[in-house]
């Protein structure tokens, strides 16, 4: 999906570094290309440098080193108001003393558009977010979700090529957040605008993005489409940050044909896909809870003991003691199988070798 309908290098971070105090780097040597029309999410825990990157792109922070290019032109020295980048802020940043329509008209007025054009564009933008009837309201008279739609419409009304979103759904409740995720995604698909989206919510990132850049410690840990990120994490940080993950420490015995034979700390010998583990030494085995098999004849068999069962409707979450770990989670689909599980009982587990990834021992 990346790069459809335009240059693959619409936005480029070229060796960008950022430091606030001259002692530590918040962003360490960032290289990133974003294609035109792409929906790219910067995902990471707070303090990982993702918002700083967004602010540098918007022009509110200056990079300490490196170049940021937009449509081929370096924009380091262009002030924010000349960059023509739409931005949606975490707390919407709607102007409280203006009505919704005036808020939307603002970017058009500063661009000296005629009144007729302005009115036309404002009403079209409001219709796009289904807020056509609310033009005369003040932002304070709207609910959080409605304010969010207005903020979105305002960032799009002057037809920018690039829209930045800084945790725009952070203040909404869960249900509304999920609804808005789809809505933003659909608007993106319809307009073909390039979106750079910052969030710390992985499910949001997985739902909306073409590609996700996982940030940690000022470095992009992995840049990949959502499915790849989830199925094939390249290191232990990504594996544990995206989705739920069982971790087992192990020592590598040998590697052949991309399959690592390892010894777990408990002494059991199993096999896993060698991804990012080197040839010898320690490794971290990573396996998703839903890929664990509860069956005596599964490969890579280990002994487990059921510690806790939590009924979650569509599946049952089973906490087990496996190879000395008390936090080994297995998701069991809610089918007739689960009747076999009882707290305190032993149960053999296993996995298909491809589902278990041997990663760096972070």
């Amino acid at each position: 999906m990346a790069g459809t309908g335009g240059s693959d290098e619409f936005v480029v971070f070229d060796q960008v570094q950022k430091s606030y105090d001259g002692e530590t780097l918040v962003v360490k040597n960032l290289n990133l290309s974003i294609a035109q029309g792409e929906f790219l999410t910067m995902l990471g825990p707070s303090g990982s440098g993702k918002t700083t990157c967004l602010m540098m792109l918007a022009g509110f922070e200056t990079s300490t080193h490196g170049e940021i290019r937009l449509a081929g032109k370096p924009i380091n020295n262009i002030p924010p108001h000349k960059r023509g980048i739409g931005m949606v802020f975490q707390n919407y940043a709607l102007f409280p003393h203006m009505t919704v329509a005036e808020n939307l008209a603002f970017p058009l007025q500063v661009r000296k558009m005629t009144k007729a054009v302005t009115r036309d564009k404002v009403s079209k933008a409001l219709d796009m977010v289904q807020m056509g009837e609310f033009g005369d309201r003040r932002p304070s008279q709207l609910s959080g979700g409605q304010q969010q739609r207005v903020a979105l419409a305002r960032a799009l009304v002057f037809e920018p090529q690039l829209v930045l979103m800084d945790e725009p759904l952070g203040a909404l409740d869960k249900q509304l957040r999920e609804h808005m995720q789809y809505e933003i995604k659909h608007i993106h698909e319809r307009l073909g605008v390039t979106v750079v989206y910052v969030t710390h919510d992985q499910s949001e990132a997985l739902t909306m993005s073409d590609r996700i850049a996982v940030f940690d410690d000022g470095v992009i840990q992995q840049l990949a489409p959502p499915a790849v990120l989830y199925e094939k994490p390249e290191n232990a940080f990504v594996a544990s940050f995206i989705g739920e993950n069982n971790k087992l420490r192990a020592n590598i015995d040998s590697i052949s044909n991309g399959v690592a034979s390892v010894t777990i700390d408990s002494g059991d010998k199993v096999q896993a896909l060698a991804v990012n583990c080197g040839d010898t030494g320690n490794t971290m085995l990573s396996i998703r809870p839903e890929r664990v098999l509860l069956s005596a004849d599964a490969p890579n068999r280990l002994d487990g003991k059921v510690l806790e069962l939590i009924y979650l409707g569509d599946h049952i979450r089973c906490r087990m003691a496996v190879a000395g770990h008390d936090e080994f989670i297995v998701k069991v689909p809610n089918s007739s199988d689960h009747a076999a599980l009882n707290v305190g009982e032993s149960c053999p587990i296993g996995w298909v070798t491809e589902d278990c990834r041997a990663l760096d021992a972070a």
Partner: protein
Amino acid sequence: MTDVSYQPDTTRGSLTDASGALLAADGTPLKKKLRQALAVSRRRAFLLVAPLLLFILASFAIPILLLLVQGVKDNTFSSIMPETTSVLREWDSNSEPTEEMAAAVVMDLISAKEISRSLPTKVGTRVNREVSGAISLFKKTTRKAPKMEAPFLAELYKVDKKWKDPAYWKAMKIASKTITPAYYAAAVDKKYLADGSFADQPEDRQIYVSLFVKTILVSGGVMLACVLLGFPVAYLLSHLPARQANLLMILVLLPFWTSLLVRTTAWIAMLQSAGVLNDIFVWIGITSDDQRFSLIYNMTGTIIAMTHILLPFMILPIYSVMKAIPPSHVRAAKSLGATNWTAFWRVYFPATIPGIGAGGLLVFILAIGYYITPALVGGQDGQLISNFIAYHMQKSLNWSLAAALGGILLILVLILYWLYDKIVGIDNMKLG
């Protein structure tokens, strides 16, 4: 799973009485029940504020009420001269004084003198406010009154020819009214006449209207100066890192921690013709030694000192409002294409208006009643209305006129308050 089944309540649904009003479970109306439930907490809240309420009533509300009454009520004459008062009420204030009026004056003066020697003088002072020369006339008449015999009118003419002048009788008629608009009229440079009409004061005695105008202009000027000087400071305060902001805040608050008198006298040291500022002007050659600026004991001094003293009242509300403006608003404006100036003027500045309004109203109302500073540094033409109120309270002892002037000041402030509410809205005001 243990089977604790839930019994649906068949009597569920709210009870209502015949008129459809909701009833509580025991059958009393729900509204009454709610009042009862809240009564205790309301009583407790009232008890908590009661001491302050009593204090405000005793030291603020009642004095203001008395002041307003004092401005229209004056029973000096009518209480000391009851006979004269009732006779004068019948007089049409144009015809010749009658024997009956003269007799009443003589009788009243005799009985007043018997109670206290100072009473006739009080009457004289009161009448003297309407026409000069009345004090000596009443003193003289009182002295001779006990020996007078009818016809009293002729006796009065014998004592002093002034009694032939209808002006004195008219003045007595004005003074005899207990509820009188005379003081409010005087406070706006009008004269209340014996026949109940109003006339302009002679031109050389018209001082109060122009003084009110001057007071309002000075207060407005001080307010404007405070906005112009305070806004940038408040902006700096709200945008500096915490450490520097705290230091700056201390500098802003420093005037609050110094006595008003010390500050005002410090300005005298700064501004007088041999003062620091003039020395500097001479030294850098802005003016010559024999042409030093007169910066004090005039309007300039009043405005400079008042602006300095009232500045914190402007800075603090603006600061607290600015502190609450999210930085993302200006950023949003810039990202939408606004230049720095447009972002400031169309997004940031409107958000500060509640603070400017609050500070402006505060400074204006404080300035309009400012007394000590104009008295100390104002000289002759830097005096404001409050200095004249003080003068009438302390020197001329014309408390009723002082009350009338104060009453008009109060009305002016209320009008401004109302205007502010109409234009900006009191709800929009933020003091911190």
